């Protein structure tokens, strides 16, 4: 497999093949590659001019997620932590004692209609203020199906009816009118019985969160979460799953897919490829706290799953909280993964893909070798075009970077950086629009910004 950073060489090879005159290759290569670089720069979008704010500037917003419906409307959700300068006293209004994993936020939603200049005013999705258990590393998930139903998965605060103590649970809600209204959230996990507060420390009795969700084109909803039921001192969570075959109206009973082997704070992610093919990414704890990113595949719409396979990378040993999610997307039969590995020097994101379901992932490559640190990956695809987005530091502050692949991950175009000005930025999310463009969202000084990105044409990329 060509490495990611062979993309420039790939373009030059194409040029050499077309030039056909060996003696002039070097000169022609330099001239044409400079010309190509100029064209790419000229066609790169003016991000500052094109990005729009989804959240209000006087509120603290974190962890955006986006989806796009068939008419091109952009739907965004994020955690709202309250007004700037407002003390976090929401917990006083929520049942249950204060505990060691406390977070009281709201889930806000806004939409950007195609003809509008920007987003609508945001609305709170969770009926009870402070109901959402939200951090940047425990993100909400939003997805749209081909009928333009909007599906949302989010983590929430709850009180165990068994122990009377605070727990964190996974909730699902949907909108059947393209974001006009959201149904009352459904708690996906069964109420946990055991009080594990002594094991978890500080009062949180159980956690059924760090979830992922994928929705098939026809609206089959696949929801996953990490679950502390059965947790022991080794602190390894189980993976649970529920499915709705009717667009999120009714869910089948929960199923425990993997028992006591998951990193308890590494959020699960999921993608579908058509109606039957479903992938779930998780981080499995192996041996002496080796945190290995793995992908599971179902070829029958979630009825059964093949054993998880590693996406590769150096073994990362850590008795701690990595807080790292694996980004995934599909092109053709390929499944692509992008995930942080703390064992790399410097620590950073590794990209890999498996050529087909059930096949091993190819040896991973650093997607941003120049970065001193890269993290928080997001990916989306359209046909054979793949977009990877993440935040990273090179020499200065954290910035958002992206790379396109026009050939399903064989090679990537040169690295590009979003021009986000002086803001403190991070935690990007991405979705595919019906016209093949991509919608990227990110945090900028705790304001959610959104913009379109368009892949350069094959001609521009030298294909």
């Amino acid at each position, binding site marked *: 497999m060509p490495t990611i950073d062979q993309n420039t060489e790939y373009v030059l090879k194409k040029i050499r093949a077309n030039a056909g005159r060996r003696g002039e290759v070097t000169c022609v290569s330099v001239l044409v590659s400079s010309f190509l670089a100029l064209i790419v720069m000229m066609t790169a979008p003016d991000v500052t001019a094109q990005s729009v704010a989804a959240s209000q*500037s*006087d509120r*603290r917003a974190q962890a955006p997620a986006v989806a796009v419906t068939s008419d091109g409307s952009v739907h965004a959700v994020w955690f709202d*932590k*309250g007004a*700037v*300068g*407002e*003390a*976090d*006293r929401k*917990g006083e209004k929520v049942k249950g004692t*204060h505990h*060691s*994993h*406390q*977070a009281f936020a709201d889930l806000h939603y806004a939409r950007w209609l195609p003809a509008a200049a920007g987003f609508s005013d945001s609305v709170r999705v969770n009926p009870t203020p402070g109901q959402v258990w939200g*951090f940047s*590393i425990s993100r909400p998930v939003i997805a749209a199906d081909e009928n333009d139903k909007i599906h949302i998965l989010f983590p929430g605060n709850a009180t165990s009816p068994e122990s009377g103590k605070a727990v964190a649970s996974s909730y699902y809600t949907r909108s059947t009118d393209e974001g006009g209204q959201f149904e009352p959230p459904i708690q996906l996990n069964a109420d946990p019985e055991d009080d594990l507060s002594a094991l*978890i*420390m*500080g009062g949180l009795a159980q956690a059924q969160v760090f979830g992922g969700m994928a929705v098939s084109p026809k609206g089959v909803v696949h929801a996953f979460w990490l679950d502390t039921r059965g947790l022991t001192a080794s*602190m390894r969570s189980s993976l649970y799953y529920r499915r709705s075959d009717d667009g999120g109206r009714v869910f089948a009973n929960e199923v425990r897919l993997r028992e006591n082997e998951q990193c308890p*704070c590494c959020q699960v992610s999921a993608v579908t490829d058509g109606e039957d093919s479903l992938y779930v990414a998780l981080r499995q704890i192996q041996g002496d*706290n080796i945190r290995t990113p793995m992908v599971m595949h179902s070829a029958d719409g979630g009825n059964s799953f093949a054993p998880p396979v590693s996406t590769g990378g150096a073994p990362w*040993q*850590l*008795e*701690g*909280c*990595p*807080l*790292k999610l694996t980004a995934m997307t599909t092109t053709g039969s390929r499944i692509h993964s992008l995930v*942080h590995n*703390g064992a790399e020097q*410097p*620590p950073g994101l590794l990209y890999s893909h498996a050529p087909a379901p059930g096949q091993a992932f190819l040896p991973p490559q650093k997607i941003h070798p120049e970065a*001193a*640190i890269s*993290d928080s990956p997001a990916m989306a695809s359209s046909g054979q075009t793949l977009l990877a987005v993440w935040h990273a*530091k090179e020499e200065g*502050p*954290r910035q958002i970077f992206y790379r396109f692949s026009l050939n399903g991950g064989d090679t990537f175009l040169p690295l590009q950086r979003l021009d986000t000005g002086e803001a*403190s930025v*991070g935690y990007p999310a991405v979705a595919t629009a019906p016209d093949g463009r991509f919608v990227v969202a990110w945090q900028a*000084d*705790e304001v959610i910004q959104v913009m379109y990105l368009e892949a350069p044409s094959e001609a521009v990329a030298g294909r």
Partner: protein
Amino acid sequence: MRRLFGAMMFNIVASVSAWSAGAHDPTLLVPMDRKMLQTELSDSRGQVLLVNLWATWCTPCLREIPDLLALETDFPSAEFRLLAISMDDSYSQEWVTEFKAQHFPTLVSFINAEPDMDLLVSVIDPVWNETLPTSYIFGRDGELVQKIQGKKPKAYFQEQLIAAGLKQ
């Protein structure tokens, strides 16, 4: 502008409260911005310094803290300093203070006052990957000598601190 003003006021109040009340009082949890962290690092020169990043939502961190507190009895206070910084949301200062008082009443800790925890930690470690717990050992000359990620046993910290120049 309102956001900037709010952040400035918060940091001013935090700095004043730290100065007036005593940032090293274990009954307090003083908000720490980048400037205060730089001051604390500078003030710790002459001691071997262990900076520990923790959070209430990080169970391995909470399990590690008793061992870190035990190190304070192993080494003379003139030679060794433990500086803990909570990565919890600074707006949660009140209840994190309650939590710390209940579980670790003798721990001298600050709480991140920057809007993003990476902004604060960048003073020490520009390439921190936001994994907890993370600890840093500084020598007496103020130079960073060791970065430690994940919960480690007390004996491991003892070894590293001795390697950094401490005598038991």
